């Protein structure tokens, strides 16, 4: 069984004001087939965790480890981490002018699998996955994320999740900016991916809204760069009612 392990992770970034410590010792174990929700107020380090695991060069690992089935992810370049089975659905996917979605998907699939996907089944699979996410067929001829609406960008991220079939996926605030219909469609896609591949999920969110459609096995509350509280799905309900106030020091209350 596959497992993603984060042990005592400390991470900093360089800012204009100097080095800023963001993660202060994060421990997290995600087994395949499990859904973990990471919740917390803005600035608590949720996205930093996501991007550090994926290997964004902006984040500097001070200490700790991240392993996937024992392999040291932190020692790998970004693309090798993806090929090892990691996927990050980004909050703000960038535009790539002149690169058509269909070409991008095929290139990514080829890279992940180490071989070209068989053309006929692949085309069918892409068409089917797009249909499930209520994406128009013309979508595949557009350039990656160029001129996409917020909802289209998120669907495109989940489309990749479904097609690339990672062992573990981190969804960074995939719910933010989505109306309820789009949220349902995207959530269905995530649930479908889990059903089909049994992947492990790390769901990063500020709100509990998406958890109505994707039921977490575990909820971790992030405050000041570490896990402040852990529990089951019922913890999310509590946060829904109480908010994050009780985790915040009075000084940081806005």
């Amino acid at each position, binding site marked *: 069984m596959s497992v993603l392990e984060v042990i005592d992770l400390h991470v900093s970034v360089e800012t204009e004001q100097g080095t800023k410590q963001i993660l202060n010792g994060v421990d997290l174990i995600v087994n395949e087939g499990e859904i973990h929700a990471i919740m917390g107020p803005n600035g608590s380090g949720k996205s930093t965790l996501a991007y550090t695991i*994926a*290997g*964004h*060069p902006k984040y500097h690992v001070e200490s700790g480890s991240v392993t996937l089935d024992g392999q040291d992810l932190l020692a790998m*370049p*970004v*693309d090798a*981490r*993806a*090929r090892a089975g990691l*996927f*990050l659905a*980004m909050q703000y*996917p*960038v535009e*790539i*002018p*002149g*690169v058509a979605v269909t*070409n*991008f998907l095929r*290139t*990514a699939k080829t*890279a*992940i699998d180490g071989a070209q996907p068989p053309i006929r089944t692949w085309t069918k699979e892409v068409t089917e996955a797009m249909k499930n996410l209520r994406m128009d067929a013309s979508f595949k001829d557009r*350039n990656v994320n160029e001129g996409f609406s917020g909802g289209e960008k998120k669907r495109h991220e989940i489309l*990749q999740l479904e097609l*690339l079939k990672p062992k573990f996926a981190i969804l960074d605030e995939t719910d933010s900016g989505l109306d309820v219909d789009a949220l349902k469609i995207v959530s269905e896609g995530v649930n479908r991916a889990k059903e089909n591949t049994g992947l492990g999920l790390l769901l990063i969110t500020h709100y509990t809204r998406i958890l109505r459609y994707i039921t977490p096995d575990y909820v971790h509350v992030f405050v000041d760069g570490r896990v402040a509280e852990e529990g089951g799905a019922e913890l999310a309900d509590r946060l829904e009612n109480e908010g994050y106030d009780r985790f915040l020091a009075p000084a940081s209350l806005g």
Partner: protein
Amino acid sequence: MRSARFASFDVTDFETVTGHEAEWKHTPVARVQPLIDGTLDPDIRPVTATASSDDSVTVEWIDRNDSRIGSAGKPEERASANAWSAFESALMVTITGEQPSEISVTRSALGTGARAAHTVIHATHHSVGTVVLQNSGDALLSENVEIILDEGAHLTVVTVQQWNASAVHLASHFSEIGRDARLKHVVVSLGGSVVRVNPSAHLSREGGEVELYGVYFADTGQHLEQQVFVNHDAPNTKSRVSYKGALQGVGAHTVWVGDVLIRPTASGTDSYEQNRNLLLTDGARADSIPNLEIETGEIAGAGHASASGRFDDEQLFYLQARGIGEDEARRLVVRGFLSEIVQKIGSPALEERLQNAIEAELALSTAS
């Protein structure tokens, strides 16, 4: 002021080039000296032309005294005038059919001697066609290309520079756009030591339109330059200028100058120009100089944009996060960046060939 630049057909009317002149200050003058001051061989016969249809395109050599020469423009700098003073016969391409025709003019055996060339492309009223000037091999060439569009003509001119590494090529393209005529002009510069193609468009009749596009890829030591001039000189004319370039390696240098002049005669002008450069490595330099001169208050729109930047690390991260290796991710981004222009040509076979040529440039970049 672009509106007041000196012009003459005669090379002796021009002063000695110092390198400080507006039209020379970005160019490595020493490397092009033979074309500015030298004697140019007027024999330009090593040219082959192939047309897709025989009855709507004619290709012929005409004498320098032919009345069809000199109607689209006048040299504005010494190397252009030097070529104009030297050439003896000109290649004349006439497009007459209303059904689209395509003609390819190939120059691949010009050799290393200094030469002058003159080409006239004439699209008669309501004709439709594409002319491709395909350049490869050695060259030390200064040339003028006149492009004349009569009323309602739709013409595409593509000039492709895939010269050998030591080639030097200076070209001035002068186009005269008739009433309701539309010119699409594309400069593709990939190979050569110094390549400077200066396209100008005179929108002298009401309703004329030009799209001036360019794509270039400069490697170590290469100088690729284009000075674009759009001259809005009649009501309700439209221009779109878009040039994109990639640069890699020490001493890779590109220059884009975009002069747009909107004369008092050009009310209702709609104009936009942009240039974007992608610097792939240290040691490369992209000069990008937009310049808008507006002499009438009654325009529909005029704007410009210019940006030269490093590779976008976020694009790279996004692609790598999908398992795509760094080299391939870079290739995808650069190919995408440049193909936006290539896609505008509208000739699938040519587009594919140019995409492949860009691929080859990129392959060189990752091999080194």
